[in-house]
């Protein structure tokens, strides 16, 4: 039997266990479920969980550790044993609810640990290669270098500051587009628009998040870039580059609109009506109510949405490659081509360079640096939210 079918079998067994546990508890209570400590459903779940969980864990382990094949059916046996054990425990005074809730709680904890495990794994998968990089390339030059000129023959300058600058610059512009537009769109949808309009507009805007970034990239390259160059940059004498921080930022901002708008819309919608009523009854206009009562109450959620958008901005590649170019440069002029850390991570990892050379390994160091930096940014955001959070009711 393949692991898949064993899984199915275990799940079927668990379903059976649910029915058995349920009916057994009802029978033990003599048909009067009020005599039970916990509802029959909980007794059912208790049996189902004890059937499925250990068996599935064992199965996963055998699969992961590439244990001999006969161990897989053993999981099924364990499932049967669990079922028998749980059934035998079923009794009217058995605290099935508490047991089930403990198990569920355990599952919840495991789920939140996945996030931690992911982080650990990411750090681990970055840190060794980064160390190798720093053995080949001085860290001072990496962190404080203002030149980014990798070359095949070695002797590259791999200073990250130009990339950092580009990252911050482009993300900033993207957020300057996405946050106001997204927030105003969210406000309009949740506060002004009729339900009909909202139910159409909201999913429509969400489509923006689903359009592959390459489409945005091409849009930046083919449409926005030349437009900005011909109508703004050149007349103002700010350069004649077709790709620029501005192009990438604008287009990326467009993509990020739904991140801000949809999430904020939900949060704004969750602010209790009584707060709005309170403000409106004081003779404040709708917009005053929104600005001074609704938005502050929705702040934590909105900050979360903006952070998510910022995160996407930092992690985006395609739009930057096509919209902002690949030139690592520090310049205040938004109409010049620049590039970001993420682009260079992808670039250096997928290029033709020797994979053991600092030119490739620098990608890992960049990844790690970015990770640490965004961590700092998030700590700051958490602090801000804590400070200004307004808990309603």
């Amino acid at each position, binding site marked *: 039997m393949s692991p898949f079918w064993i899984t199915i079998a275990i799940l079927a067994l668990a379903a059976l266990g649910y029915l058995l546990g349920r009916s057994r508890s009802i029978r033990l209570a003599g048909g009067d479920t009020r005599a039970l400590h916990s509802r029959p459903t909980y007794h059912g779940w208790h049996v189902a969980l004890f059937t499925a969980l250990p068996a599935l864990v064992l199965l996963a382990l055998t699969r992961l550790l590439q244990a001999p094949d006969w161990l897989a059916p053993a999981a099924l046996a364990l499932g049967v044993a669990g079922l028998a054990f749980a059934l035998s425990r079923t009794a009217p005074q058995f605290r099935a609810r508490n047991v089930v809730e403990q198990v569920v709680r355990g599952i919840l904890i495991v789920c939140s640990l996945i996030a931690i495990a992911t982080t650990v794994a*990411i750090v681990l998968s970055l840190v060794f290669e980064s160390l190798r990089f720093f053995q080949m390339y001085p860290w001072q030059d990496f962190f404080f270098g203002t030149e980014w000129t990798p070359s095949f023959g070695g002797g590259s300058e791999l200073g990250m500051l130009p990339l950092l600058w580009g990252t911050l610059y482009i993300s900033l512009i993207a957020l300057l587009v996405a946050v106001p537009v997204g927030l105003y769109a969210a406000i309009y*949808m949740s506060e002004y628009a009729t339900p009909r309009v909202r139910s159409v507009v909201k999913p429509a805007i969400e489509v*923006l998040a*689903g359009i592959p970034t390459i489409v945005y990239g091409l849009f930046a390259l083919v449409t926005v870039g030349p437009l900005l160059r011909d109508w703004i940059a050149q007349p103002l004498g700010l350069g004649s580059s077709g790709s620029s921080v501005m192009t990438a930022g604008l287009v990326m901002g467009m993509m990020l609109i739904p991140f801000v708008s949809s*999430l904020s819309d939900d949060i704004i*919608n969750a602010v209790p009506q009584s707060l709005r009523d309170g403000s409106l009854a004081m003779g404040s206009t709708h917009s005053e109510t929104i600005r001074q009562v609704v938005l502050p109450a929705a702040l934590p959620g909105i900050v979360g949405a903006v952070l*998510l958008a910022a995160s996407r901005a930092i992690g985006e590649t395609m739009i930057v490659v096509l919209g902002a170019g690949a030139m690592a440069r520090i310049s205040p002029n938004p109409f010049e081509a620049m590039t970001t850390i993420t682009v260079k991570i992808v670039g250096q*990892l997928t290029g033709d360079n020797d994979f053991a050379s600092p030119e490739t390994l620098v990608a890992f160091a960049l*990844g790690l640096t970015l990770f640490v930096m965004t961590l700092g940014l998030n700590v700051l955001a958490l602090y801000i939210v804590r400070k200004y959070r307004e808990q309603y*009711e």
Partner: protein
Amino acid sequence: MTDVTSQPPRPVDPPAAPARRSLLIEDPRTRRRNAAERRFRAYGVVAIALAMGALVFLLFTIFRDGTSAFFQTYARIPVAIEAQVVDPAGNRDPAEMQKVLTMGYGKLLDNSLAAYVEANGIEIEGLDDRDLSSFFSAQARADLRNAVLANPELVGTVIETPVMTSSRIDGMFKGRVSRESAAIDAKTSVAQYDLAMAMEDRGDLQTRFNWDFVTSTDSSDNRPEAAGLGVAILGSFYMMLIVLVLSLPIGVAASIYLEEFAPKNRLTDLIEVNISNLAAVPSIVFGILGLAVFINFAGLPRSAPIVGGLVLTLMTLPTIIISTRAALKAVPPSIRDAALGVGASRMQTMFHHVLPLAMPGILTGTIIGLAQALGETAPLLLIGMVAFVTTYPSAPPEGFLDPASALPVQVFNWTQRADPAFFERASGAIIVLLVFLLAMNLLAITLRRKFERRW
């Protein structure tokens, strides 16, 4: 609004009766405030208009460039299966016949076309062998070969079957190739153009809807006209299945724990920050992770949807967790009190009351997270899914382990190819991807509308 206005304040002490003011006449302050209100509202309209405008524009370009990918031009001419070409040994032995490669079948088509031209009395200046041999798609040869090998009876007969034309011929009927561009195009010629037009006049060239674009597999740079999305759609479907089944429950479970059950201390703060930080990790780093953990450590195969699905799950989790937590936070505490007050456990409070109220936010997170996962290429790069795959993965569960590509991968690959015909295909693939996205989100969007309420 701490602004202190020039307007004399109404006396407050003692509250003297204010002068009668008409409700129908705005006083200056109200006028100003109402103007601000209108501006604010206008900003909202403008914001929505901007977003919708961007959407409409993008969709317009996508559909403009991509619709033609769903159509394909075929020729209908008699094809003689000449025995000396396909069966040089002359013994109809399939093993022997197999030695004739697809390239060899080109001759059949060339000869048939030449015969057709002659039979119909088409006279075109400068029509040479190259024009004839590049008239049909390389795929047509392969199809022919497969047909002959499957049915050796055909050898020596003349069959009439739709023959796929090459991308340039196809392009002539989609406005991509004109007589002028044909003149300077190394891959076609004016003579070929005239021939195609002559054939069309006779009704022997037809452009029709091309289901193969949706169902067939990718093809190499030499035959853009044959490239299809079948494998990519399956691959994306398998991956999204995994992502949905894993990321939604895990994400919601993690959020519930962190928001409702976890003690509030340094550790949980750390976890919280950590999760938002994961959202900022460039997606390719998840690819690095997937390669290390799922392929090198867990021993799962390369290019397999299961690995892609797992990586995308990890990538989607932060989005879902962040939005779910925000939604949980927004549920008023009084609801929780009410449930706890009648003796519901925290778990029951959570699942019976708070979660349903947080559902819109959770679904939004899911919609956005899945949209992002569906369109992502970079993390698939390192786990081998940005690949040229020409065999369909089998049905689940084995199919999860078979090589497959994905829709965004196909878009990404096709936009990089040299033949301009692939650009049209890439846009077509985006249309399919959007349809896929909408289909995937339809349930979530309807559900969300059901759950939305104010309290």
